């Protein structure tokens, strides 16, 4: 067992912060989806999680700058720090989109909305967020690859669902239609950010651009 280098203490702290962000972002998304599907207004709770994510993102950036200034990191150390800055932004965006989704709850009419597409898409997207976190923390290149193919699946499902909504235009409640369209859009954006996390993970491991 070799001694820890001075920079290792900082890198561990950075990873701890990302770990917290993974939990918070997953929780925010889960609650916001539940908020929609059960029409319970949880927006304050999700906003709080989103604010926490923004706060940790700032802290992450601050620590990253300190580590660069103090240790002049190179090679995998440097790539890890760059990736941490990137993924902390992605997780904070996921938190914002989750809050946006929760905010839609009050727009939804009492009855008559079919959330099948949201149910389906949100399941994949939630899994993507969790898997992105695991891929990053475990430096798992295979998992990062898998996330990119999951994103293709999301894009396809999103396109089909929107097409369906257009066909339903005039046949269903406008508030319903708009709510579903917006939520689908936010979910698709969240999947993109999970994919960016996968890209940052792959870069951190290999040094190549994805």
């Amino acid at each position: 067992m070799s001694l820890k280098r001075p920079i290792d203490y900082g890198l561990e702290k950075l990873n701890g912060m990302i770990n917290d962000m993974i939990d918070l972002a997953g929780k925010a998304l889960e609650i916001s989806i539940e908020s929609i599907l059960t029409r319970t207004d949880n927006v304050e709770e999700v906003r709080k999680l989103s604010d926490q994510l923004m706060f940790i993102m700032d802290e992450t950036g601050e620590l990253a700058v300190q580590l660069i200034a103090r240790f002049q990191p190179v090679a995998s150390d440097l790539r890890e720090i760059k990736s941490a800055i990137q993924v902390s932004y992605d997780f904070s965006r996921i938190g914002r989109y989750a809050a946006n989704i929760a905010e839609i709850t009050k727009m939804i009419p009492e009855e008559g909305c079919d959330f099948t597409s949201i149910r389906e898409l949100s399941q994949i997207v939630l899994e993507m967020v969790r898997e992105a976190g695991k891929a990053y923390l475990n430096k798992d290149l295979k998992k990062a690859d898998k996330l990119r193919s999951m994103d293709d699946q999301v894009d396809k499902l999103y396109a089909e669902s929107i097409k369906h909504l257009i066909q339903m235009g005039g046949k269903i409640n406008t508030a319903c239609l708009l709510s579903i369209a917006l939520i689908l859009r936010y979910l698709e954006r969240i999947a993109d950010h999970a994919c960016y996390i996968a890209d940052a993970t792959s870069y951190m491991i290999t040094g190549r651009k994805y």
Partner: protein
Amino acid sequence: MSWAIEVQNLNVWYGDKHIIKNVSFRVPKNVIFAIMGPSGCGKSTLLRAMNRLLDLNPHARVEGQVKINGINVYGDNVDVTWVRRQFGMVFQIPNPFPHLSIYENVALGPKLNGLVKDKSQLDELVKQALQKAYLWDEVKNDLRKPASMLSGGQQQRLCIARALALKPRIILMDEPTANLDPVASSKIEELLLELKEDYTIIIVTHNPQQAARVSDYVAFLYMGELIEIGETSTVFTRPSNILTEKYVLGRMG
């Protein structure tokens, strides 16, 4: 592409100890080429093999080729004095002639080698060399004073001026800042970046951060073997060999 120096299958032994193991690389002109590696990896030996300084060591045996402008310095009819003249060399501990004046330290080489016709030409050459070494402004009023009155950093720049006065093609530097404080070290590093306009510089360093700061290309030497060579920006962002990675991360040993 024409190369400043080409090293091919170079092997060096001290007695029966194999120090440099089949090393090959090429250095483009007008670049700073750093050789980095842990203590005892053979960096200084590799440098001394280039200008045949190892000839002076009776226990050293060299095989392979070192080519400057296509000429193998170990070739049969090659004059060792000509070889040494192609290189300027700067060492870890500043080694000016302490009792000679600042002026004489620079003037001695050109005088001994008959590079100048008269006093005014010599004055001009000394001035140019001191200017190129960014020392002129600090010493122009003290040219007749002994070199030993200078600070360590100034002495090292005087050694660089002394090397430049002989108009070499390549400057070899063996840990040139190892004995200097950070401010004097930065001055030397700034100077290197200026000098590469006119010369090719090969610098040995056991400080990977210094290689990262100043070099264009870097080679990593470990236990006499050339482990990795490449553009500095690549080697310090994504080294291709795990040993290089460990070394630049400070995880080695």
